[in-house]
């Protein structure tokens, strides 16, 4: 039996590795079209961030929001709802948190920071919850509604940081950069490594990942949530109110993305500014899928994609290919991962390949 599990793991890893390599191969063709040497580009992207303190700390700075968004998306996917609204939920979370931090600047950090995070959670949860409610009670396709809510959130956010919440200094100096005032130091997350941007948010994110794992796999509510996602009809028979669980999943999912907004505000920028979501809402989808929609897989996955994002920035400087190529590569990785699922779900196909790889036969021999 042990051997079978071992073979299963080898098979799984092999398929994922092949999928990633096919994505990177197509990515290499795209890099060639963008007049770049793909080998050089990939070399810089994967190794340069690992070569020093700056790169290593930056990877974790990116991993923190990615982990939170990824966790939220995993909760939604596990409940059978596809949340593409991470970007919007981050922005609404960020503006809720910023508002609290600016309103109560004198509260001591141990009160203010939890307060800010809760506010961000609520902000994101409202934004996700709208889509969840419309899915459950009006059967509005959640992919379309979350995408529309992204565009709406962006405009609302920009309106607020250009208008009512703009830094008074930007107005008095007449520069007019759309950003809020600097938060009081009480709302800053401590930097855990001096002379870097690495802040305590990464620790918060890891703790939350473990909590999500406990919630989804060790509690009744978590079980019902996954049941609603895996087989809605069966879940109904065992007395799960599937609709309410859809809404709950989207509330949680949006809330986690909202907290990613708080992490960026309190940990990195210390104010609300224009590019705060930085595409994390979309990258979080890749992180969640790559992590197998499992909290404990999402922790390493967010570090890997943190590496890719930092690597892409470094690539832009040394190989002069625009960092936006990473978005295209992430898109390819999504396509590769969802395509690879057939090798797990189609058992006949799986057995055929495993026999070809001589994994099954060996396993049978050892069993007898």
């Amino acid at each position, binding site marked *: 039996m042990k051997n079978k599990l071992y073979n299963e793991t080898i098979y799984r890893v092999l398929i994922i590795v092949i999928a990633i390599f096919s994505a990177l191969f197509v990515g290499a063709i*795209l890099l060639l*079209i*963008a*007049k770049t040497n793909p080998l050089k580009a990939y070399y810089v992207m994967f190794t340069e961030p690992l070569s020093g303190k700056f790169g290593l700390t930056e990877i974790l700075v990116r991993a923190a929001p990615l982990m939170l968004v990824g966790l939220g998306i995993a909760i939604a996917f596990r409940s059978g709802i*596809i949340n*593409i609204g991470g970007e919007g939920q981050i922005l609404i979370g960020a503006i809720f948190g910023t508002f609290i931090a600016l309103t109560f600047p004198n509260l001591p950090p141990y009160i203010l920071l939890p307060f800010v995070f809760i506010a961000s959670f609520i902000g994101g949860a409202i934004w996700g919850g709208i889509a969840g409610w*419309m899915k459950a009670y*009006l*059967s*509005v*396709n959640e*992919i*379309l*509604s979350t*995408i*529309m*809510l992204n*565009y*709406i959130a962006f*405009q*609302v956010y*920009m*309106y607020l940081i*250009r*208008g009512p919440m703009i830094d008074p200094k930007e107005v008095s100096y007449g520069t007019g950069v759309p950003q809020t005032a600097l938060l009081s130091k009480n709302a800053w997350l401590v930097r855990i490594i001096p002379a870097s941007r690495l802040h305590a948010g990464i620790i918060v994110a890891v703790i939350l990942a473990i909590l999500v794992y406990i919630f989804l796999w060790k509690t009744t509510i978590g079980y019902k949530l996954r049941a609603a996602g895996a087989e809605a009809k069966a879940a109904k028979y065992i007395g799960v109110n599937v609709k309410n669980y859809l809404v709950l999943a989207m509330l949680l999912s949006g809330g986690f993305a909202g907290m990613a907004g708080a992490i960026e505000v309190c940990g990195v920028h210390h104010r609300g500014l224009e590019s705060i979501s930085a595409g994390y809402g*979309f990258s979080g*989808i890749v992180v969640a*899928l790559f992590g197998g929609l499992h909290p404990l897989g999402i922790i390493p996955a967010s570090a890997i994609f943190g590496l890719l994002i930092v690597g892409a920035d470094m690539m832009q400087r040394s190989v002069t*290919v*625009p960092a*936006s*190529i*990473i*978005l*295209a*590569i*992430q*898109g*390819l*990785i*999504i*396509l590769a991962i*969802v*395509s*690879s*699922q*057939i090798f797990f779900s189609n058992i*006949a196909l799986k057995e055929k390949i495993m026999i070809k790889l001589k994994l099954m036969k060996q396993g049978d021999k050892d069993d007898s």
Partner: protein
Amino acid sequence: MILDFIVGIISAGIPLAAPLLLAGLGEMFNQRAGVFNLGVEGIMLMGAFVGFLVVLTVGSPILGLFAALLVGAIMGLLMAVVTVKFKAQQGISGIGLFMLGWGLSGTLFRVYVGGITSIEGIKTFSFPLLGKIPIIGEIFFQNNILVYIIFLLVPISWYVLNKTAWGLKVRAVGTNPQAADTLGIKVERIRFQCIILGSMMAGLAGAYLTIAQTHIFADNITAGRGFIAVALVYFGRWKPVGIMWGTLLFSLAHAMQRSIQVYGINFPYEIAVIIPYLLVIVVLALSYKSQLLGPVALGKPFNRGSRG
């Protein structure tokens, strides 16, 4: 004054509807065959960029449109392989395709063009005599040639879908692929054809934006039009005429929002920009009952072995 305002909105709204209609009709073919293609936005972005680049370097709008068709076909092929051959989850695949198109068009734009440049593209032209008729001329006879072609696709699509053998196969594949398979219809082949056709139309819709409408390319220039087109297919109940009404309603609201800004009515810019997106959500919420009328097999991969 009021009349000018209304005529202005209608005459601005019709050309705005054209790319949505084109992409929406393409998505209709996808969905009628049972495939939910959310990659439309990414395909439009690539079509918009490639069309723009060809016009910028070669100068021929016709070649630009052909290039957009080609790039649409390539991306459609990718989507078809992923969703039909590998039977991947269609919604997430579409988001992957969107990110691919968005990232790639933005990157190639920075590499090959650099900054905002405008092209000649396709200009609007006024019909002789007819264009001079007050009001009616302004609304119907002063558009670019593509607008007429795209609106002509409404009856053509209806005919193809409802009156040809191929259209019957498409509907069969989207409604009951198992039964279609038993009758000897090649389900996968029909789905491949529909995805590629729909994606070519999406690529062309993207090129319309850069070549015939804005005459520039900018990062993320489609601003959600691809997703809106997908939503309008639901609103139009998977029928060409319904989709046309949806795109018209939508683009008139869009044009009205623009006029409000032009007329300097005091209204925050950001709030005005929200209106179209908000309208999509409202439209989706109001048309939820019509989802029952949609293709039955929509979103479900076809497995020959399984009994559905």
